[in-house]
């Protein structure tokens, strides 16, 4: 399990629709804001990179001190962004792929409006479990 990790999902119109702090490190008060700041700053790089490759998993695209940003872009241009300090590419890839499946289930829910916030507690629990398993 990574000591620090922050996972967010950004919809195609640049709105964060899901956020989770999944690290095991003791929380610093300003950590959440800092993590969001780094992730949001990386969005520009994602935008450029996303069209240069056909792969969904973009690997590590940005770093900040010892923190690394890994990104996965779905076909619908929803971005899964993970900020982490571990070096475990395979685990991260599997994490993204499984979250992608969960995200598809959410999208298939007729009562969910695409691009709106993901409020499902089931999804939240599953994502946290996956984070424990792979990161």
């Amino acid at each position, binding site marked *: 399990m990574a000591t620090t990790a922050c996972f967010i999902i950004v919809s195609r119109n640049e709105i964060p629709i899901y956020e989770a702090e999944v690290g095991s490190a003791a929380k610093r008060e300003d950590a959440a804001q800092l993590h969001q700041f780094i992730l949001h700053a990386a969005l520009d790089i994602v935008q450029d990179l996303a069209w240069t490759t056909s792969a969904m998993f973009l690997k590590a695209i940005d770093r900040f001190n010892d923190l690394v940003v890994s990104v996965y872009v779905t076909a619908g241009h929803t971005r899964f962004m993970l900020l982490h300090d571990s070096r475990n590419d395979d685990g991260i890839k599997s994490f993204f792929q499984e979250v992608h499946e969960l995200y598809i*289930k*959410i999208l*298939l*829910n*007729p*009562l*969910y409006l695409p691009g709106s916030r993901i*409020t*499902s507690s*089931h999804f939240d629990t599953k994502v946290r479990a996956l984070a424990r398993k792979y990161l």
Partner: protein
Amino acid sequence: MAPVGPRSGDAIFANVERVNAELFTLTYGATVRQLLTDLEEVEEVNKQLDQMGYNIGIRLIDEFLAKSNVTRCVDFRETAEVIAKVGFKMFLGVTATVSNWDADGTCCSIILEDNPLVDFVELPDTCQGLYYCNILSGVIRGALEMVSMKTEVTWIRDVLRGDDAYELQVKLLKQVPEEYPYKDDE
């Protein structure tokens, strides 16, 4: 044509035209979604779904009787069994069980373990009062009304609300006697 005995739900299900389950689920989901947008009130959506189900039911019963060859049911118990074992199998591809009979045999529960309508669905906080599958209760009510049984169908358990199965309570209110121009020899 030689008289044929009643056919089992599985036999009919094997012969009817089918559509892709996801297409069906998502179409129903889109309908509910649109109703929620149009009517705004969850209560109104429940009513509308029930009404739509009723309209389906009063037509569906004809198809059901034509294809299933079931004979006249002697009592309400048999009716409920036929709905659960043949009706649900024929149109939804699942079987239901009947239980919780009251003493005089006019009220029972139809329990569905599996429900193809609700794949992927999760009720958000804004729709907590919604009976997502309310169309089913309308179908049963409509169908039974066409064969002269006034019923009241209500949901008792719903997996979307955290229960472990779907339970529909069917209550026989009265049996409407068949009225005059009814010719026995037709």
